[in-house]
């Protein structure tokens, strides 16, 4: 930790959060909001004079409320930076009548009540997301009495109690009478591996954490009677089985069975655990002076904002989703963003360090090159066709198109800013925009190939690269079975799906068309899929006006992690397809073909010479 504080190339921005981002791999522009500390971080020496005079006492968050701190405080003695901070919600303020004592006391004059939050902007090439995890709150598992019995604590509270820097200076005492417990019971999987409460997954760290805790207790107080109630002990890592065996050899009892109930003896405040030992099938009762709930690990509750800022998504367990579960385990789907530690999945310190080094190495690969190539999938505007209407500039999520509606000069694409979603091309009423590698003609060719034979049997599906197509991949990896009638056309974003593609498919005899993309918060092109939705809604109206059932055009949002949903949607659209009759399809073909023959309005010409007539 101190290495970080004094490294010449690390700028530490504590008490800060990422507020906004723009840009892309190699050139992210990040706004960081720095909260006011009210103490000059550079000048403060953490001498502690201010502590002595501060009259406000509040629970200490670092010690999980097991001790108190002042309104001006240092989170813990080894904190980096080694500087105090004022908790303004607790502070009485600088009104002299109210308080202002620390201000008077501080000789170095580090305290400034008028300090305000401020924003700084950073330009970076790569981003590592190491936002960690939250710890499960066992309140809802009322049978363990966490909120009713003081001598029932969590494993994290235990860490603070046994820590020499903690509230009891490392003396293990039970909360009710501050007596050293002679009988300690651990309950495993609290908040983990449960379909009902907490999380369905294994939290990875709790078994070994309990084994370690049992060794710590035995180390200090060998006579302590320790019982561990578990369903499985997962000691899979290097050296883990040794620790487990050592714990057993020291007399720690491992009892296979999770207690159904914990009750308190009102007289002694001892705890009585009722459990079925599943190795013997016996119902047993065990007494303990203290019960430690081995609580699980959860995704951070505040990760939603980061998801939006860097277009990240989560797997079904709630943790951030990697680009590939096996081959790109530290890369985010957004290029230039990497994961380290528990943000991606629960892991212990060794695994967190390993992944952090891997993430650093992956980021290094990008940055060491100095230049990187961007996929050639950007949009190109034909100035001869463009009328300067500026619709494209209006829909571009990246503001990558310069257009002037007043002057009606042809629009221009800034290639480095274009991410290639294709929304502009789909929205351009004049066909002036070509998406490189995802051209209209290339997509139309795929539609034609699908519908050349037995069109009644086929469903034309447009799937975005990042979510829906990837969801289809995930369904495959999971071997989920669904009917074989859908044919997927991959575009980078559902925003690329021109209404003409859909109409073309119907004209060629498609019974059903599905447009699928990312959920709104997950769109890899900021909010391009909002345009998808608007366009599909317009198409539904249009189909209805023409006498074509709008249900034959479906819209679904499927994330890369939703293999199940993908398979379900495939089954549902197959049912819808079966309901479409050949007569209905023929009628649609007739309506749309006649419609296509009618001449379209001529576009207004852009002010330029020579002027070409765009489409007729």
């Amino acid at each position, binding site marked *: 930790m101190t290495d970080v504080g004094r490294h*010449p190339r690390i700028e530490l921005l504590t008490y800060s959060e990422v507020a906004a981002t723009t840009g892309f791999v190699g050139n992210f522009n*990040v706004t960081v909001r720095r909260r006011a500390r009210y103490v000059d971080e550079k000048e403060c020496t953490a001498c502690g004079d201010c502590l002595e005079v501060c009259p406000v006492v509040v629970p200490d968050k670092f010690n999980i409320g097991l001790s108190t701190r002042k309104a001006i405080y240092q989170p813990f003695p080894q904190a980096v930076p080694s500087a105090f901070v004022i908790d303004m919600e607790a502070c009485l303020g600088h009104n002299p009548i109210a308080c202002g004592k620390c201000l008077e006391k501080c000789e170095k004059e580090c305290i400034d009540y008028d300090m305000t939050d401020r924003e700084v902007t950073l330009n970076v090439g790569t981003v590592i997301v190491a936002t960690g995890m939250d710890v499960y709150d066992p309140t809802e598992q009322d049978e363990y009495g966490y909120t009713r019995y003081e001598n029932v604590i969590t494993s994290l509270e235990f860490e603070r109690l046994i820590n020499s820097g903690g509230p009891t200076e490392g003396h293990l005492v039970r909360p009710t009478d501050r007596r050293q417990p002679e009988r300690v019971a651990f309950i495993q999987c609290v908040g983990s591996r449960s379909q009902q409460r907490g999380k369905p997954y294994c939290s990875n760290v709790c078994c070994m954490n309990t084994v370690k805790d049992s060794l710590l207790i035995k180390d200090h107080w060998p006579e302590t009677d320790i019982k561990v109630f578990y369903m499985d002990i997962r000691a899979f890592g290097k050296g883990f089985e040794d620790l487990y065996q050592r714990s057993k050899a020291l007399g720690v009892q491992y009892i296979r069975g999770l207690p159904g109930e914990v009750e308190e003896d009102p007289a002694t405040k001892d705890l009585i655990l009722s459990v079925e030992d599943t190795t013997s099938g016996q119902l047993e009762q065990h007494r303990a002076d203290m019960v430690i709930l081995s609580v699980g690990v959860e995704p951070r509750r505040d990760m939603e904002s980061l998801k939006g800022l860097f277009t990240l998504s989560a797997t079904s367990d709630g943790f951030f989703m990697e680009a590939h579960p096996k081959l790109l385990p530290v890369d985010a789907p957004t290029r230039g963003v990497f994961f*380290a530690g528990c943000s991606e999945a629960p892991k212990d310190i060794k695994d967190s360090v390993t992944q952090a080094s891997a993430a650093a190495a992956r980021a290094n690969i990008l940055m060491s090159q100095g230049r990187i190539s961007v996929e050639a999938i950007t949009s190109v505007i034909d100035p001869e066709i463009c009328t300067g209407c500026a619709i494209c500039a209006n829909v571009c999520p990246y503001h990558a198109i310069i257009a002037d509606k007043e002057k009606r000069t042809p629009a221009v694409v800034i290639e480095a800013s274009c991410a290639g979603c294709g929304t502009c091309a789909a929205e351009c009423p004049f066909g002036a925009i070509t998406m490189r590698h995802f051209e209209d003609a*290339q997509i139309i060719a795929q539609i034609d*190939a699908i519908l050349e034979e037995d069109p009644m049997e086929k469903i034309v599906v447009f799937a975005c690269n990042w979510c829906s197509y990837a969801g289809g991949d995930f369904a*495959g990896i999971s071997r989920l079975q669904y009917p074989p009638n859908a044919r997927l056309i991959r575009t980078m974003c559902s925003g690329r799906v021109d209404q003409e593609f859909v109409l073309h498919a119907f004209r060629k005899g498609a019974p059903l068309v599905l447009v699928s993309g990312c959920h709104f918060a997950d769109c890899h092109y900021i909010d391009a899929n909002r345009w998808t939705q608007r366009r599909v809604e317009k198409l539904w109206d249009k189909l209805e006006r023409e006498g074509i059932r709008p249900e034959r055009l479906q819209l679904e949002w499927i994330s890369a992690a939703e293999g199940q949903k993908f398979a379900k949607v495939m089954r549902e659209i197959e049912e819808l397809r079966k309901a479409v009759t050949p007569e209905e399809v023929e009628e649609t073909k007739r309506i749309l073909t006649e419609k296509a023959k009618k001449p379209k309005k001529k576009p207004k010409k852009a002010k330029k010479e020579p002027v070409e007539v765009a489409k007729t």
Partner: protein
Amino acid sequence: MDDGNHGEELRIGVYVCDCGRNIAGTVDCGVVTEFAQGLPHVVIASNDKYTCSEPGQEVIKQHIREHNLNRVVVASCSPRMHEPTFRAAIQQAGLNPYLLEMANLREHCSWVHINEPEAATRKAMDLVKMAVWRAALLREQKELEVPVERKALVIGGGIAGIQASLDLANAGYQVYLVEKEPSIGGIMAQIDKTYPTMDCSI
């Protein structure tokens, strides 16, 4: 089908991959290859056990040179998996990487229609046909190069963020480490001793 071949004679090679039994266990890859051979502009269609393997890629490169191929279709797994592999392969043989098209016979076909081999084979043929028709219209593309800022942002100052910051800073990059709390350390700092070494966390 629009023969918009941009003024050149189209010469397409199609490579149908068995992926061991992953694809061939459900899809009749021989039938698919034969079907591909009959598609317009397809000069050669070949069936391999593992197209992504070194020998598999070598076949493609050799065919590009011997048969003057100017488009390549690989019918194997998801392009999200191996598109970079095959783009690099055809580039090594002198083709622009954007003249590759993939058909996803594994994730989107053989793995999800395990009990319907005939329907899966028909679907595989369609997927290959779609890829060939699209390939005929592909154009060479040139990628834009952009400079990379040699600075990194690390969000979160727990053990993972600390390690990543130190590694990157020691590799010579400027690092910004953003932490929500007033101190770095995260949950790790709250833990007493840590396994498997049983030493202190800070």
